[in-house]
C-alpha cells in the first residue's frame, strides 16, 4: 500500500499539490523542438532544468536526448541571462553545429525578465547566427500552464520564425500532430501518404526518438521536419491542427500570419475521430479515401462489434493531458463504456465542458487537479479500468484495478514509441490492450466453474 496515506474523504486543498498530474512547460518545448531535423533544444535557465528534462525524455523513450543549457549562475540571475544566452548561441553553433537552436525559457529566466526575442535579435545583429542557421524561441515559464502549453508555445515559435506569407500556394497541406508519440506522427504521415496527399507534418519526432540500433551514435538522427518543409508551411493550402491545446495556437498563427486557413480537430484516436480526420483531409484536398484505409476502418469496426459485450458498462477512470483525454473519452463512449472520472493537471476550464459534452453531465471531470485527487475519486467510486501514465500504477496497485498505460510519461513499459494510438490501426491496438487488461482480470478472478476457455 504505497498510497496508504490517501484518505477517501475529499478535502479541498488550498495550497498543496500532491503527486502532480502535469509537469512544467519547458519539457514540452524541448520535446517539440526535437521534432525539427538537426535542431538542438536549448534551456535558458539553470543546469538542473535541462538535466531533468533530458532524463525524463530519456526514461520515456529509451533514447539519447540532447539539449543545451545557459547554465545560469548567481551572477546571471542578478544581472540577467543575456550574456549567457549570447555566449550559448555562439558556442552551440561552433561546437555542436545544429541547423536550428530552439530556445525556451524557464521560471528563472522569465522572472528575472530576460526577453529572449530581444536577445536572439541581438545575436542576429552581432553575427552570432551563421547564414542559413536559425534560432527559434518560446516563452515557457513553469508557473503558467503545463508541459502541454510548453509544447504548443514552441510549435507556435516554429511558425513565427519559419512560416512566410505568400500568395503562391503550393499543393500541400500542414498537419500539426500535437503532443503525441513519434509513432503517432509517423501514422499521420502514413495516412496522408496513403491518400496521396502532400503534407508537411510538424513537429515530427519519428526517427528522432525511436531510432534504430546501428552501432553508431548520431547526435542529429535522420528524422524531424526540415527547414525547407517548415518554411513551406506558409504556402500550404490548409492546416489541420490535431489537439486544440497543443496544436491550436500554431495553426491560428499560421492563419493570421500567412492566411493559411485551419481546421482544429480532436486527436484522431478511435473510430469517430479518425473518421473526422480522414474526412477533413478528403474535403480540404479533394483526395479520395483509398481501399487500404477503408479496410483498416472495417477491421476496427469489426473488432468493436465482435467484442462489444465486453466493453458495455465497464467503468473507466482517465488521467492525462486534455487533448488525449477528449479523444479517448469519445472513443470509450462509442464503445459503450462508462467514463466515470476524467482528470487533468493542466489548467483550463474549457476542458470540463468538453468532456461533459461527450459523456453527458454524469461524469467527474476536473482540470488543474493532481493524482491524489484522482485516487480519491476512484476510492469514492471504484472503476474497472484506469487509463493513465506510469504514475497511475501506484493507484492501480493499491486499488487492484487494471491499468492501460496511455499518455506521458511512460517509464516502465515500451511500445508507445513504435505503435501509434492514432488512426484505425492505432485504435485496434488500443482495443486489444484494453481487452487484454479486462480479460486477464476476468480470468484471474473467475471462480473455477465459470473460468472460460472461449472468450
Amino acid at each position, binding site marked *: 500500500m504505497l498510497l*496508504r*496515506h490517501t484518505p477517501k474523504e475529499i478535502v479541498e486543498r*488550498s*495550497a*498543496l*499539490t*500532491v*503527486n*502532480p498530474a*502535469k*509537469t*512544467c512547460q519547458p*519539457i514540452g518545448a524541448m520535446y517539440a523542438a526535437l521534432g525539427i531535423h538537426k535542431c538542438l533544444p536549448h534551456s535558458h*535557465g*539553470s*543546469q*538542473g*532544468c535541462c*538535466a*531533468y*528534462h*533530458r*532524463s*525524463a525524455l*530519456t526514461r520515456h523513450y*529509451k533514447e*539519447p*536526448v540532447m*539539449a*543545451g*543549457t*545557459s*547554465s*545560469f*549562475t*548567481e551572477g546571471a540571475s542578478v544581472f540577467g541571462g543575456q550574456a549567457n544566452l549570447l*555566449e*550559448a*548561441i*555562439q*558556442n*552551440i553553433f*561552433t*561546437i*555542436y553545429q545544429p541547423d536550428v537552436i530552439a530556445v525556451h525559457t*524557464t*521560471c*528563472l529566466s522569465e*522572472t528575472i525578465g530576460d526577453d529572449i526575442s530581444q536577445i536572439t535579435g541581438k545575436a542576429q545583429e552581432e553575427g552570432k547566427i551563421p547564414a542559413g542557421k536559425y534560432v527559434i524561441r518560446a516563452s515557457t*515559464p*513553469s*508557473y*503558467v500552464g*503545463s508541459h502541454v502549453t510548453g509544447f504548443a508555445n514552441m510549435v507556435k515559435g516554429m511558425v513565427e520564425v519559419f512560416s512566410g506569407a505568400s500568395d503562391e500556394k503550393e499543393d500541400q497541406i500542414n498537419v500539426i500532430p500535437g503532443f503525441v508519440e513519434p509513432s503517432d506522427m509517423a501514422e499521420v504521415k502514413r495516412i496522408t501518404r496513403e491518400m496521396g496527399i502532400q503534407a508537411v507534418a510538424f513537429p515530427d519526432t519519428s526517427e528522432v526518438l525511436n*531510432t534504430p*540500433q546501428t*552501432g553508431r*551514435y*548520431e547526435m542529429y538522427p535522420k528524422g524531424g521536419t526540415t527547414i525547407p518543409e517548415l518554411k513551406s508551411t506558409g504556402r500550404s493550402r490548409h492546416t489541420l491542427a490535431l489537439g486544440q491545446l497543443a496544436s491550436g495556437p500554431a495553426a491560428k498563427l499560421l492563419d493570421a500570419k500567412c492566411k493559411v486557413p485551419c481546421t482544429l480537430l480532436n486527436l484522431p484516436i478511435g473510430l469517430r475521430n479518425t473518421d473526422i480526420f480522414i474526412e477533413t483531409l478528403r474535403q480540404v484536398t479533394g483526395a479520395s479515401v483509398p481501399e487500404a484505409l477503408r479496410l483498416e476502418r472495417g477491421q476496427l469496426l469489426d473488432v468493436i462489434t465482435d467484442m462489444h459485450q465486453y466493453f458495455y458498462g465497464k467503468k473507466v477512470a482517465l488521467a492525462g493531458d486534455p487533448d488525449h483525454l477528449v479523444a479517448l473519452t469519445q472513443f470509450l463512449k462509442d464503445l459503450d463504456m462508462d467514463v466515470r472520472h476524467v482528470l487533468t*493537471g493542466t489548467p483550463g476550464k474549457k476542458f470540463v465542458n468538453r468532456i461533459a459534452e461527450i459523456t453527458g453531465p454524469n461524469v467527474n471531470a476536473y482540470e488543474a487537479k493532481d493524482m491524489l485527487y484522482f485516487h480519491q475519486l476512484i476510492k469514492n467510486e471504484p472503476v474497472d479500468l484506469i487509463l493513465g501514465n506510469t504514475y497511475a500504477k501506484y493507484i492501480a496497485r493499491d486499488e487492484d484495478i487494471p491499468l492501460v498505460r496511455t499518455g506521458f510519461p511512460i517509464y516502465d513499459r515500451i511500445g508507445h514509441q513504435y505503435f501509434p494510438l492514432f488512426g484505425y490501426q492505432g485504435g485496434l491496438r488500443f482495443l486489444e490492450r484494453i481487452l487484454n487488461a479486462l480479460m486477464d482480470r476476468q480470468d484471474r478472478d473467475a471462480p473455477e466453474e465459470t473460468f472460460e476457455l472461449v472468450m
Partner: protein
Amino acid sequence: MSSILEQRKNQVYEKGSTGFDLACEQKSLAGSVSQRACVFCGSRVVLYPIADALHLVHGPIGCAAYTWDIRGALSSGPQLHRLSFSTDLQEMEVIYGGEQKLYRALVELIDWHHPNAAFVYSTCIVGIIGDDVESVCKRVSAEKGIPVLPVHSEGFKGTKKDGYKAACDALMRLIGTGDTAGISPVSINILGEFNLAGESWIIKDYYRRMGVDVVSVLTGDGRVSDIRRAHGARLNVVQCSGSMTHLAKQMQERYGIPFIRVSYFGIEDTAKALYDVADFFADPVLREKTQDLVRGEIKQVYPQLQTYRQALSGKRAAIYVGGAFKLFSLLKALDMIGIRTVLAGSQTGNAEDYARLQAACAEGTIIVDDSNPVELAKFVQEKSVNLLIGGVKERPIAYKLGVGFCDHNHERKIALAGFVGMVNFAKEVYATVMSPVWNLPKTVGKQVRHENT
C-alpha cells in the same frame, strides 16, 4: 564534431601524455550539452531517503514532478518520501510572493501526515522572488511542534555539490536535538549511504555482527529520531565523500566526532572499511569478530567472482559518474573481475580527485571532467569499450553503440555494496557484457543461405 573536442581539450587527459593538469571544478560552458544537474537536485537526492519526513518542494511544479520517486532508496517502514509534494507556484504567487501558499501547504501537509520533521526545498524562483522561507518554517515549527527545516537549494546558486552542502546544513539543524542516553561507546553513524536497492541494510548487518552500534544512517532508510541523536555516536564513517564530508566536518567541529572515509564497493574496500572501523575502537575482540566476518564473507563470494573473472577477463570499461569518489572503488572492482578501465570521468570531481585517479589508472586511460555525449561516444568507440558505467542519460548512448551498460546511479535495482554486492555487480556486468544481443547485428544476415546460388 571535431570542434566539440577542441573546446574541451583542457578537460580531457590521456595517461602517459605529458603534463597532467586537468581543468576541473569549472562552470560548464554556456550552451554545453553537459550531463550535470543543479543545487536543488543535489539537496533532493541527499535528503530524499529520510522516510518519515515530509519533503515539500516550494516552487513551480516541474521540480517536484521530476523528483517524484525516482531514487530507489528503500525504506523498511514509512513510504512518505516516495510521494511528491509541491506548492505548484502560479503566476500570481510569483508576482505577490509565495509565503502564504507555502504556509498553508505546510499546515495542510503536517495536519494530514503528522510527520516527525519537514524539509522545505527552495527552488530557483524562490530565490528570485525573495520568499522568506526561513521565517515561514520557523512559524510552522512553533505552531506544530516539529522541526521544519528550510533547504537553501535554489538551483542556480552553484552546482549539485552546493546542493549536498545545503542538505548537510539542514541536517545539522536536526542533529543534536535528540537524547543520546543509552548509546554504546562502540557506535557509529553511517554517512553518505542512501540505501539504494537495500545497500544500507547489508552494511548495517555487517556492523551488527561486529558488535558496532549504528546510531543513524544518513540518510538511507533514514528516520528523523535517529538523526536527532546522531551526535551521540563516537565515529562518523563517511561514504560517497562528495555529498557528506561537509556534514562530517561540521559534526567534528561541533561535537568532536572524528570521521573516516570509506567505500563499501568492492571486496577490498568493504574489508578495509570494516577493519578501519574496528581499528578505530582499538578493541581486540572487535578486531577478531571483524576478521571472522570478512574471512567468512570472502570465502563465500570469492569462488563465484573467479568464475566471472574468467569469463570477463580482458574486457574494457568506460566509467562516467557523478562524483569522483565512486571512480576509485569502481576501478578496483572492475580490476578484480578482470576488466580494464580505459576511460574514467566524472561530472564534479576536483583537482585532488583527478590527481588520485591519474595515479590509479593504467597508461593510456582517458580521464575526463564534465563530459558530453559526443565525446563519450567517441572514446567508447575508439577504445573498443565493452562496458559503459554511468547514469540515466548515458544508458541509451551505450546501447546505441552496441555496448553493455551498468547503472551505478539512482536507477540501479541491484545492491552493489558489501561482499554480496560485489557478486551482484559481477553478475550484472557479466549479464550485459556477455549478452548475445551485441552479436546480433553481426550474425543475422550471414545465416541466410540461398539454395541454387
